[in-house]
């Protein structure tokens, strides 16, 4: 029994020498507590590593919710004599890219399907009626309202990109900015304007009923200057539509006028733009942004060329040039 017991007791002072089985000398540096602690520590470390792995995997499975994109409602203004030559081409090409679109005209047409405002001869009074109509019937269909002519070519995605850093609750509007003789900022009619929904509601609810803020009289050839005056009277800011390099995104001419040489001062519509441009130009040259939004067509069949080149043509082996919105670039 004694030999089998765990504790080998040898008696120093006994006569018989019972020799316990020789035991190895213990390691001097580790006590019992230290060893047990070390084991526990290593197990803890392992558990932590595993826990970290699991947690990391879980966080990767979560996806970032996409931002709500600004809805763009396009109001395309046309006339009955242009329905078959101009408006149908716009309808068949880029108008599909707007979230919703509405043609406004002075006569009906089976393909274009415009909202008809007949017997209004003045362009300013037509604009007032059209914007009021859109506010009444289509205000909930868009966050930003693009009022544009039927012979413009618009790249709606780039407009969405420009607007994604602004809120539709802001009182702001964009376009090709000009300055009138009375130093009033307004947007050039050849290139269209983009109103925020707050700006449109302020215009319709506050500016239009008030005759001193916004005149209901015919304005002849200067409806957009009057629009600029009305909007500034209700505190709507004329925004800067140029990109981060100061290049222009709304062009009142066809872009081919810009590439070789500069604008021609002897042409009347070039002269009007050069005289009144809000932003300075060097040597009559207008730098074109790579995030171009709007240009004006001279020969309407070319709109099919532009639509084909924008949305269908690819250059093999070269990645397509895309814009990434600010939030996707820096998720933190």
């Amino acid at each position, binding site marked *: 029994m*004694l030999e089998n017991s765990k*504790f*080998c*007791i040898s*008696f*120093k002072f*006994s*006569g*018989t020498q019972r020799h*316990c089985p020789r*035991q*190895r*000398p*213990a390691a001097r540096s*580790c006590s019992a507590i230290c*060893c047990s602690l*070390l*084991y526990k520590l*290593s*197990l803890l*470390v*392992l558990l932590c*590593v*595993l826990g*970290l*792995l699991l947690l*990391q995997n879980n966080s990767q499975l979560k996806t970032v919710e996409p931002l709500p994109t600004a809805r763009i409602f396009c109001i395309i203004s046309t006339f009955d004599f242009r329905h078959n030559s101009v408006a149908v081409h716009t309808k*068949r090409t880029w108008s599909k890219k707007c979230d919703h679109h509405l043609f406004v005209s002075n006569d009906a047409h089976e393909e274009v399907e415009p909202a008809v405002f007949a017997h209004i001869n003045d362009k300013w009074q037509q604009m007032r009626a059209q914007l009021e109509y859109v506010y009444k019937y289509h205000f909930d269909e868009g966050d930003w309202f693009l009022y544009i002519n039927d012979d413009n070519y618009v790249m709606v*995605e*780039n407009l*969405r990109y420009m607007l994604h850093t602004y809120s539709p609750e802001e009182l702001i509007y964009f376009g090709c900015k000009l300055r009138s003789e009375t130093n009033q900022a307004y947007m050039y009619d050849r290139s269209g304007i983009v109103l925020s929904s707050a700006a449109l509601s302020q215009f319709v609810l506050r500016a239009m009923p008030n005759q001193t803020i916004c005149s209901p009289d015919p304005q002849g050839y200067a409806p957009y200057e009057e629009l600029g005056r009305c909007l500034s009277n209700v505190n709507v800011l004329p925004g800067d539509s140029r990109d981060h390099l100061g290049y222009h995104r709304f062009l009142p001419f066809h*872009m*081919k006028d810009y*590439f*070789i040489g500069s604008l021609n001062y002897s042409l009347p519509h070039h002269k009007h733009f050069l005289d009144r441009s809000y932003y300075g130009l060097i040597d009559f040259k207008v730098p*074109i942004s*790579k*995030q171009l939004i709007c240009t004006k067509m001279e020969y309407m*069949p*070319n*709109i*099919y*060329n*532009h639509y*084909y*080149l*924008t949305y*269908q*043509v*690819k*250059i*093999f*082996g*070269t*990645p*397509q*040039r*895309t*814009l990434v*919105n600010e939030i996707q670039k820096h998720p933190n």
Partner: protein
Amino acid sequence: MSEHKITLEQLQHEQLVQVVGSTPKKRDELHVFLMGNQPTLYRLSRRHLLAFGLICSVALITLYAYWDVMMLTTLSARRDLDTSNSRQPLATRLEREVRVLCWVMTTPKYHKTRAVHILRTWGKRCNKIYFITSESDDELDTIVLTKPDSYDVLWGKTKEAFTYLYENKRHEADWFMKADDDTYVFVENLRHMLYPYSPDMPLHFGYNYKLFHNPFGNASYMSGGSGYVLSREALRLFVHGMNDSSKCRQEDDHAEDVEMGLCLYNLGVRAGDSRDLMLRNRFFPMAPYSLLMSKYNGLDFWLFKYAYYNPRACMNCLSDYPVAFHYVAPEELYVYDFFCYQLEMYGRTPVQEQLPEKILPGQLYIPPSDNRYYQT
């Protein structure tokens, strides 16, 4: 004294009772006292050290593997967004493998108004570009011919240009493209179209027209306006055989593209099909809107009579990878360039592109004419 003498057995029994009956701690103390040595409850042997070392190393290896996998996944995710930087784009590889020499027929009157703009837009993307005129220019790589600049001798000029290129420049490229000074060429898409074919096949590509002159029917010539491209073998056959009067017209007049088509047909150079997999046109001898608007041209339009393959007009009748268009004004060259190479659009989804399969010589199939508008 003998009464106090305790037997050994009694002493042992006493001590045993003490040891067994006591707590383990006390046993330790007793053990220490009795043995005079430190107890070894847990034997921290080499085995324990080994086990501890094993657990630590396993933990370290797991951590390192995790870190490595994370680095690899983040790198590949970034690569998807940023495909142009880390790996070479396919276009660069094709530029080395499919070498194209472009030559543009022009005249000194249009050097500064048209030819210079071609060089600045698509001309610089060819492996080599030469301008065939009658005078040299400071900005352009010109090849000056002996024949005058006139439409009457256009066929003669073409023959002389190809002869010069064969004798002096044939080692610079595998494919030789002829274009006008109002043509826009998408050079990367041209290389993509030519990749499956070997330059040792006698082939030429362009927009196919029916060759009515040929008595055997089913022959085709390429429109000169939108340009045509010859393989190295086709160039060799053409240059060696063009002085044969039974095969090619020896005078310098008549329509250059028709005579070219007839000559190549007689010399055994086949007219390839330049359409894409969905049989949409890649070359077109007019602006894109002519084929995208269905009723732009009436049915009596000459294109419907002369086209070799079905000339249907619709919104989806042109290829996603077009090669050439004609009647492009100098300003419009920059417009094409702007839309293709400079415009940035929001929300484009990246497309995975792959090189097409190579076609072996025996596998080459060129479909016959199927223009249903006019049956001849």
